[in-house]
């Protein structure tokens, strides 16, 4: 059972919800931090890291002895990553998306695969939580391969909670696709609502059941609620706009460990998700 936690807008509380939910569950949980451009769930869960590994992609390396400077590789490259000169070929590794086009069109077999590091994966444990995160290397821009690598460790025997990146582009799709449920976290502000609408469109396109958590409830207005009602998206939890919660977060602590009643509230959130899934299966 995979629950992906997404938002559209950044900073609405994805990680807060994901980490508190994971800690509250009284069974084995897998936590995948797929916000690989700025992973931060480890700051809250504080897992003991037991293993680290590299994520690599392939970039072309041209054998100038074999190259006939025909320019097929340069012509097929949609990212402008190759420049075929009179007697030289330049490869701009940072522009390369590792699509393999240049390897495929080279009739001289002059292009070899060279490894390039995109980022790292870390595995760790904390009580009942088995933890994995991805981290994009500075200067690199290819996010989805790292997210896919993180997700390749999905343990289908347990509950998997994915902390997705913000937005609605490729990285978010990579973090939501194939999930059983998407939990959208929003805030009741015009920005929150605007980006929530985009996120809802994305989730609908992927055909994944979804529900809403309103964080900082009490702030802004009721437009998010009326939108949710109109779209028939269940509001599964509201977390109040409370200075105490902000303080707990800023100290890297968990709400469920610091404020009474919240562990139960997050357990309730999980039960509601399971209920929605069951109702869906029975239909």
């Amino acid at each position, binding site marked *: 059972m995979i629950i992906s936690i997404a938002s559209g807008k950044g900073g609405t509380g994805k990680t807060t919800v994901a980490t508190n939910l994971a800690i509250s569950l009284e069974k084995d949980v897998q936590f995948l931090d797929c916000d690989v451009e700025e992973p931060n769930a480890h700051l809250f869960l504080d897992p003991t890291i037991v293993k680290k590994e590299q994520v690599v992609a392939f970039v072309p390396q041209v054998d100038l002895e074999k190259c006939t400077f025909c*320019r097929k590789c340069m012509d097929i490259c949609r*990212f*402008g990553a190759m420049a*075929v*000169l*009179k007697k*030289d070929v*330049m490869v*701009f590794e940072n*522009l390369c998306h590792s699509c393999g086009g240049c390897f495929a069109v080279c009739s001289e077999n002059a292009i070899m695969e060279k490894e390039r590091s995109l980022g790292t994966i870390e595995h760790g444990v904390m009580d009942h939580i088995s933890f994995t995160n991805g981290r994009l290397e500075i200067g690199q821009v290819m996010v989805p391969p790292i997210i896919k690598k993180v997700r390749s460790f999905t343990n289908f025997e347990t509950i998997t909670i994915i902390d997705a990146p913000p937005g609605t582009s490729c990285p978010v799709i990579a973090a939501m696709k194939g999930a059983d449920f998407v939990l959208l976290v929003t805030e009741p502000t015009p920005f929150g609502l605007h980006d929530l609408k985009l996120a809802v469109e994305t989730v609908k396109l992927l055909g994944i059941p979804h529900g809403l958590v309103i964080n900082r409830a009490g702030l802004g207005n009721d437009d998010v609620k009326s939108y949710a009602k109109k779209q028939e998206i269940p509001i599964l939890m509201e977390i109040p706009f409370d200075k105490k919660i902000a303080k707990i977060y800023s100290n890297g602590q968990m709400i469920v460990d610091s404020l009474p009643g919240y562990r139960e509230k997050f357990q309730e959130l999980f039960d509601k998700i399971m209920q929605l899934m069951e109702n869906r299966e029975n239909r």
Partner: protein
Amino acid sequence: MKIAVTAMESSLDSLVDPRFGRAAYILIIDTQTLEFKAFDNHENKNAFKGAGIQAAAMVSHNEAKVLLTGFCGPNAFKTLEKAGIKVVNDQSGSVLDLIQKFNQGNVVFADQANKDGHW
């Protein structure tokens, strides 16, 4: 000698296009006879990334020895340097005037890019 000049239009009366990778046209000109070929750069102009690199490869392919333009980014400069093409940055005015200026030796060759890359 063949040189490359970025231009707003496909003629020698045109103004110099300040951009290199995303110039409207790149003219490959023979400095003695003033015979030239105009290359429509519009595909590069709308490229997502790597426009300067592609333009540099095109200049190299057409055997120009010098590029005269307004701004040249780091990737384009690296490519041109590797192809043995000298770069003259910060140019403006008409293409014809610029060729004259070049023929009189009134230009300074750049030793680095004069524009940051686009991200």
